């Protein structure tokens, strides 16, 4: 019997646990840092927003790199272009009184629940890129939300189906991928039987790479059924990783570093795994080849294993891409941290270096997600003789 998959899955589980631990601790400290800075910001802005605006110099000294980076890797209802120029994106809310739509520019770039938007007799505020039903009256900081002791809004939230920055990028990437691959498919039709040319010759090796190095070794002769999923997921992750690295308008969103996106991709792999799992796969989980008394331990471990694999996929992609974005942002922010222009060459040099690595990571993460998906599906459909 081949024990390799077991070891692989054990290693994967270990990785998952450590990733979760590291993620928890890092985000925990960051979250606390954010809270501290928020508290500081609140105390300064207690005197009123205009005072804070006026004392911009004082604000700059308290530049918080964590808050800045986390704000930039998070989703947003507006799309920052340059300086004070923002593109307002449509807000679509499913409220208790039906669907409400308006443009996010109505919040006037407020992200601290200070501007109330009234629509269809309902009042909304935006805080930390989340939309809440506004409170009747403002609190002592002029915010129309009730805050708990850790400064989280306590208000009810409508279901938010807004076209956010990430949704825009998602739709853009779908359009780009359709355009690219449909034109490639057309090239295959018009240049039938001939050698590839242009875009086609650029993408064919990658398609072949997915087929010959990802699908075939892991899925065996049944690889063809899963090719559409593997190719789509590979190019989706790769294209969006690359789009995320573009610092200006069409890019810049952190789509593949968003937990919702990676969750859906991981769920797709999970569903493909469990719906294609054959009797050997389920037998391996519920009736493994170990003494009966070991079932008490083994079966729960194996059952947990079903879920940890896609969760590992989800966390890995999310953490890698988000970490890359935070790293680049932090390096760029060194200028503001040291409050000196002379640090700019260092910061740019490092950012370029990390950016180059991120280009590699963009591909590697797409590859890893795809090959692990293929591996998990392959383990589920493997025939034992």
């Amino acid at each position, binding site marked *: 019997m081949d024990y390799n998959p077991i070891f692989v899955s054990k290693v994967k589980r270990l990785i998952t646990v450590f990733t979760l631990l590291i993620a928890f601790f890092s985000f925990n400290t960051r979250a606390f840092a954010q809270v501290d800075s928020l508290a500081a910001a609140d105390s300064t802005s207690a005197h009123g927003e205009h005072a804070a605006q006026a004392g911009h110099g004082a604000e700059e000294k308290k530049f918080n790199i964590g808050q800045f980076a986390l704000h930039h890797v998070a989703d947003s209802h507006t799309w920052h272009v340059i300086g004070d120029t923002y593109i307002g994106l449509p807000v679509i809310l499913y409220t208790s009184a039906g669907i409400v739509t308006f443009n996010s520019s109505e919040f006037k770039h407020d992200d601290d629940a200070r501007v109330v938007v009234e629509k269809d007799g309902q009042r909304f505020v935006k805080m930390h890129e989340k939309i809440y039903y506004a409170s009747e009256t403002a609190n002592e900081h002029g915010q129309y939300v009730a805050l708990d002791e850790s400064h989280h809004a306590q208000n009810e939230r409508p279901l938010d189906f807004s076209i956010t920055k990430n949704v825009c990028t998602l739709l853009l990437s779908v359009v780009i991928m*359709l355009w690219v*691959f449909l034109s490639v498919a057309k090239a295959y039709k018009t240049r039938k039987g001939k050698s590839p040319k242009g875009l086609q010759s650029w993408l064919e090796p990658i398609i072949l790479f997915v087929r010959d190095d990802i699908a075939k070794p892991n899925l065996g002769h049944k690889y063809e059924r899963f090719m559409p999923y593997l190719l789509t997921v590979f190019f989706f992750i790769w294209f969006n990783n690359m789009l995320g690295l573009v610092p200006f308008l069409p890019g810049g969103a952190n789509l593949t570093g968003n937990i919702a996106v990676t969750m859906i991709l991981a769920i797709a792999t999970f569903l493909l795994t469990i719906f294609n799992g054959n009797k050997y796969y389920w037998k391996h989980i519920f009736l493994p080849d170990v003494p009966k008394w070991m079932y008490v331990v083994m079966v729960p471990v194996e059952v947990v294993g079903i879920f940890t694999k896609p969760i590992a996929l989800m966390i890995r992609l999310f953490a890698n891409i988000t970490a890359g974005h935070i790293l680049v942002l932090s390096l760029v922010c060194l200028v503001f941290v040291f409050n000196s222009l002379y640090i700019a060459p260092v910061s740019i040099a490092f950012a370029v270096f990390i950016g180059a690595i991120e280009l590699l990571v963009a591909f590697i993460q797409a590859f890893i997600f795809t090959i692990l998906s293929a591996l998990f599906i392959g383990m589920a459909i493997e025939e034992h003789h």
Partner: protein
Amino acid sequence: MDLLIPEVGLVIFQTIAFLLLMFLLAKFAWKPVLGAIKERENSIDEALNKAELAKQEMARLTAQNEDLMKEARAERDRILKEAKELKDGIVGEARKQAQTEGAKLIEKARIEIENQKKAALAEVKGQVSALSLEIAERVLRSQLEDKSKQEALVANLLKDVELN
């Protein structure tokens, strides 16, 4: 920790967009692309196989040609040899025939010569005997004309007889 909590809106949009993308790409991109790649690979394989077959066929033909050449050469040699044998046979036969013919002719000539010689000898004998008779006649005549001479002769003859 906001980063770790998925937003409902993005979950829904991502699900719809990803499924739509996968469906459209599967139908209009991956299927024709993978099909075309497979077809091209097959045609390349086929072409290579055909080339290999052609090479083998070529080798076979070359070998066949060589065989044919060899055979033809052997055939030529055989024919030449046969012709030579035939020629030798004919020449030999002719020589033999000529020899026998010659021998026959020589024999004939010899017999003829013998015959002629015999005839000539016979004739010479006849003529000699006739001539002798005539001489003898003439001698006798002249001898017998004189009596004394006859007696001398007889005496001479008798002398001869005595000597015997």
